């Protein structure tokens, strides 16, 4: 009997490996859905307080101070704003991967509350979880967005529309072009994630105008 044991063990081990392989194959045949919703506790924030200053858009518009923080009560966003420029390829610079909990203001665009379209950008996620603008696409017309400026004043915006664009069909003129009133563009990613490129194929753009 002792002679038969190694052969029996090899046979049994083979069966175990087959079972493991089959189980693995069966268990990974379905897609994992996107992470949603966010953990409990992240919800509506109170609106920030402070003087809301809307300079009249008249002959001599008063300059407004630079933006320092952003609050979107409905989706629990409260972040300081870093400054962003352009990347070497001419695209919009984005907050660094080491700091995806903040959003940034593109310094080449008008300041929030001044005439024109101010650009604010934030990540939707990191490599393993949500980032600052994870819930941006939940915003709807009429939702409130606040920007606090370096002089302590607040400017309040109301969402007018939320759009999703394929990145290869991004309407740069509509998003970055001149507007005759004080507007805000909040930009993040959305749509399908392409693991081959490591990028989402779409952008979400929230359009908002100053409440007056």
């Amino acid at each position: 009997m002792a002679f038969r044991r190694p052969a029996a063990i090899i046979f049994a081990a083979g069966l175990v490996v087959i079972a493991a392989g089959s189980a693995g194959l069966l268990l990974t045949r379905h897609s994992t859905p996107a992470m949603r919703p966010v953990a409990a506790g992240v919800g509506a924030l109170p609106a920030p307080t402070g003087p809301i200053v809307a300079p009249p858009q008249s002959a001599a518009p008063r300059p407004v101070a630079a933006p320092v923080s952003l609050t979107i009560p409905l989706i629990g966003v409260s972040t300081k704003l870093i400054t962003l420029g352009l990347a070497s390829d001419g695209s919009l610079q984005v907050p660094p991967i080491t700091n995806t909990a903040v959003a940034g203001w593109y310094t080449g665009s008008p300041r929030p509350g001044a005439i024109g379209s101010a650009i604010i950008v934030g990540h939707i996620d990191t490599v393993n979880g949500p980032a600052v603008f994870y819930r941006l696409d939940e915003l709807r017309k009429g939702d409130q967005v606040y920007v606090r400026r370096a002089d302590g004043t607040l400017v309040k915006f109301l969402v007018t529309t939320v759009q999703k664009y394929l990145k290869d069909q991004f309407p740069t003129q509509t998003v970055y072009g001149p507007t005759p009133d004080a507007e805000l563009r909040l930009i993040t990613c959305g749509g399908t994630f392409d693991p081959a490129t490591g990028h989402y194929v779409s952008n979400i753009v929230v359009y908002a105008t100053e409440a007056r």
Partner: protein
Amino acid sequence: MRFPRITHTIRRVTMLLAAAALLLGGPAAAAHASSATTGTGWIRLAHLSPNTPAVDVYLYSFGNSNAQIVLHHVAYGTVSPYEAVNAGDYSVAMRAAGASASSQPVLSTSVTIDADHAYTVAGMGPEKGLRLQVMDDDLTTPPGKALVRVIQASLKQQTVKVTCNGTTIVPKAAFASVSSYQAIPAGTWTMAAIGSGGTATQSVTLAAGTVHTLVVLDGSNGLEMISLEDAAGAGKPPLGGAATGFGGTAPHGPGSPLPWAALIGAGSLLALTGGLRLRRRGLRRQLHAEV
């Protein structure tokens, strides 16, 4: 920019016909009228007629007798801020300041507001030839530059020349005219309006990606110039969208089945080897037993 006085007359007739069709209960006409109102545009109103007293300016959405916007006591030289309105057909009416809203307007014109377009509707010319002019304001700028145009609203200086740091940008602006847009590099420049009997100068900062209107006026003391920033955007627009995600919350497709298949294959080999050995031993024992 357009000067659509004739087209406006045509449009007004068309609108009257459309109104008649609506009154007759034409559902097709009603559907058409509502389909025109998608998106928003902007409109601002101005009084640029030097010898016309202050007026009240009304903006009506077409077919609505209640004014959507009323500006009271608008005096010469006033340009209102832009107001965002739904795209569609509107009419602008001017009445003497303080006149009843139901009184016959001194002047009126119709204007079609397209989505994402901006318009200035200004009372222009001398009081006796007062007219409402509709300007389609530009909202696109050449990269790195600003756009500037001139509205000449000085009656005392019938023709003015406008210069930027000494370089002529509008050689002959006649009274009650609107120049085309001039592309000017970003910077702070001295703008001058030069008439035969006086000059007005102003330092104007032009950021890239902005649109400006210079309005030349009769001041209490000679020529005057006001500089309006009409619109602003990113001076250096980024190329394309933004790379704002790393995929950590994205849906994932099923992984490759190959590693699992390889594991099953390896297991099968093992089982086969073990099984064969077992069988061989069994045969050998049978042989021994027979001998």
